């Protein structure tokens, strides 16, 4: 086996096999779980995509950056702008689709990553952290400067580009049934009015699903069919207040009363750092028999992107470039003596991580069907940092664990809170309090995070 690995290209094949196996497993999972679970899977995959970049930047290259949330914003906004405004791809003239929009998002991310990298790679720890903090606060704020183009504080609604086939047929059928049950609901269809502000969407009046249950089995019955499944951005770590609205879709089977559902999500606070605008995805979950479920498509897309990014990241991290990054992190002078350009290595880490971040941002835009400054604020950057630190700063597997933790913990706290009857104020903020304390504990006790500790443990056991 060891000899086999020495063959040229063996590592590439191994990584490809690992990633493809994971992808195949996830495709099977996507087909079998309910829309809510698929929504969580999509979020985990999206976080993981961004955090692979954070592992490279923070872990391997040793540059603590808070700018990746802003880079995700660039990816998300470029995706939204290109899909909303361009019918065809410029120059090439081929019809615009989701993949092209993601290509534009990626290109934009790389350009901005290069800019920030050239500026930031020369800076030492706290200076870089402060500069990227400014970027994390400043770049989403730009959206407010151009309300016509970027939608301002309310952001942009977008229709998730669907694969050929599935959507058109479903759309017609969906609309028919929709009209029967809730004639006032046409405005909710994404095609009707893309610029609809989220708060309008969330009012109980035009929210036909307000009294429907989300439990998947109920979706099959005719009465409850048009339950628009509101997906809410748990992206903003800092405004935990608006957070719990996600729970409306979380507790499948619970009644979504008009009061409880839109409560937190619709609040658009004007301050910069902590707005959380919840993306509302009114397209709806649908019958499995009809063959197309938005969440399943979003999850498969997010998983596919995460797998491709994971393949690239694995090859970079476990190959020469990974050793270069680590060498510069541990001793820039020694690395320079060995013929490595420290500045080049740091900039390359920035570019790779911003490529991943912008792809994650494009996926995030499609999960939310929405882009807005609140969804990509400082909170998102901080949650990426939290995830990477908890999972393990230098471990790609740790990034996935961190991503799961970011999605799972709020839901776990919520279920605890339902059992114990906690105050809403406590429930909303408990996840962040736990994250903050865990981050401090991990830095003090186990700097390697979960994966680092496990590796140390395994090393100890095998030594004996």
């Amino acid at each position, binding site marked *: 086996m060891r000899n086999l690995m020495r063959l040229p290209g063996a590592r590439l094949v191994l990584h490809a096999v690992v990633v493809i196996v994971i992808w195949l497993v996830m495709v099977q999972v996507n087909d079998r779980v309910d829309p809510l679970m698929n929504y969580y899977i999509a979020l985990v995959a999206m976080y993981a995509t961004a955090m692979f970049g954070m592992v490279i930047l923070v872990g391997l290259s040793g540059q603590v950056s808070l700018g990746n949330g802003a880079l995700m914003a660039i990816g998300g906004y470029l995706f939204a702008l290109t899909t909303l405004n361009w019918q065809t791809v410029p120059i090439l003239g081929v019809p615009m689709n989701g993949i092209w929009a993601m290509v534009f998002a990626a290109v934009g991310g790389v350009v901005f990553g290069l800019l920030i990298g050239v500026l930031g790679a020369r*800076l030492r720890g706290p200076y870089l952290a402060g*500069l990227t903090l400014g970027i994390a606060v400043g770049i989403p*704020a730009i959206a407010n400067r151009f309300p016509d183009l970027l939608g301002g504080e309310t952001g942009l609604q977008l229709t998730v580009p669907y694969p050929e086939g599935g959507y058109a047929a479903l759309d017609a059928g969906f609309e028919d049934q929709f009209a029967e049950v809730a004639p006032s609901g046409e405005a909710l269809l994404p095609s009707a009015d893309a610029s609809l502000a989220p708060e309008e969407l969330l009012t109980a009046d035009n929210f036909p699903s307000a009294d429907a249950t989300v439990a998947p089995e109920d979706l099959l019955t005719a009465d409850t069919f048009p339950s628009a499944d509101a997906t809410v951005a748990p992206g903003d770590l800092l405004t935990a207040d608006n957070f719990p609205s996600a729970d409306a879709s979380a507790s499948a089977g619970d009644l979504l009363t008009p009061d409880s559902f839109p409560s937190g999500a619709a609040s658009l606070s004007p301050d910069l750092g*902590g707005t959380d605008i919840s993306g509302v995805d009114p397209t709806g979950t649908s019958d499995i028999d009809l063959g197309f479920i938005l969440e399943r498509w979003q999850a498969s897309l997010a998983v596919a992107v995460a797998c491709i990014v994971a393949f690239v990241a694995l090859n970079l991290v476990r190959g020469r470039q990974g050793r270069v990054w680590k060498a510069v992190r541990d001793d820039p002078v020694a690395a320079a003596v060995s013929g490595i350009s420290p500045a080049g290595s740091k900039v390359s880490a920035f570019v790779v991580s911003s490529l991943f971040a912008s792809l994650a941002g494009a996926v995030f835009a499609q999960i939310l069907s929405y882009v807005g400054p609140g969804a990509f604020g400082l909170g998102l950057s901080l949650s990426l940092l939290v995830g990477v630190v908890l999972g393990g700063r230098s471990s790609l597997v740790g990034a996935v664990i961190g991503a799961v933790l970011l999605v799972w913990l709020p839901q776990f706290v919520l279920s605890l809170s339902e059992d114990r009857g906690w105050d809403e104020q406590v429930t909303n903020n408990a996840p962040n309090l736990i994250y903050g304390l865990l981050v401090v504990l991990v*830095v003090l006790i186990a700097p390697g995070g979960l994966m680092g500790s496990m590796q140390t443990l395994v090393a100890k056991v095998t030594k004996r």
Partner: protein
Amino acid sequence: MMQFVDYLLGGIGSGAIIALMALALVLTWRATRVVNFAQVGQAMFTTFIALSIQTATGSWYVALIGAIIAGAILGVIIQYLVLGPVKRMDTSGAIIATFGVLIALQAAAGMIWGGDSQAYPQPFGNSAITLFGHEWPLSVYDLVVIGFAAVLVVGLTLIFTRTSLGLAMRATAFNPEVARLSGVRVSRTLTIGWGLAGIVGAVAGVLVAPTSTISPNSFDILLVFAFTAAVIGGLDSLVGAVSMGIFTGLLLSVVSGYSDSSNAPVAALVLLALNLLLKPEGIFGHNSARSV
């Protein structure tokens, strides 16, 4: 021209607050070579405490004193429990730990006081001063803010230059090993530095709260402004932090005046980026900000 002067004057009050917060960042940097990104979190927390005291007692001054005491205690606790135990070599770890503290403080404040923006009482009136037939864009409150900032700066300067504690703090900042060998109780000095920073931050928080509102995240943007000012000032210079804090306040006021207040964060970002490109060690400092 008159308009320009008005915009400049209008920025003095916010400049003084930015200066105070930058001062707090510089104090912790001097003490432990850590930029305390949780500083605004501490200030937010102590301002909420002050608001509770204000509601209970009705006295602005008692609330301010409460915030100062809470700020000192919080600073000492964080240094003692979090930053003290972080290994001095682990720069990334220290930065990440301060962000962890920031997240935890904001969540705790949200738990206790809720996430909504709350008004903080304005104690001295917010009306503009009319003098020589011109309505100046300065209120009595702005003058109070400037007065507090001046008192704190003078007080800190006296502590640093005239007391043995100040000497010990300067020695520790210069070289902790040598200071320890000379009989300075380094860890205690560091803790006092954090306590002082906590006090300055707490005062800044109570002063800034009436000019806007207070919520768990409302000071985030102040962190960006204060960091910008502190870095331009050289990060280890008290004079630098104060002068560049006021300069940043004036600049942002002019930018907001001529364009729109939502440009302020981007303006601060541009200022910070330009400074880091052209003169990364700051105007008053002798740190090396660049490593490559």
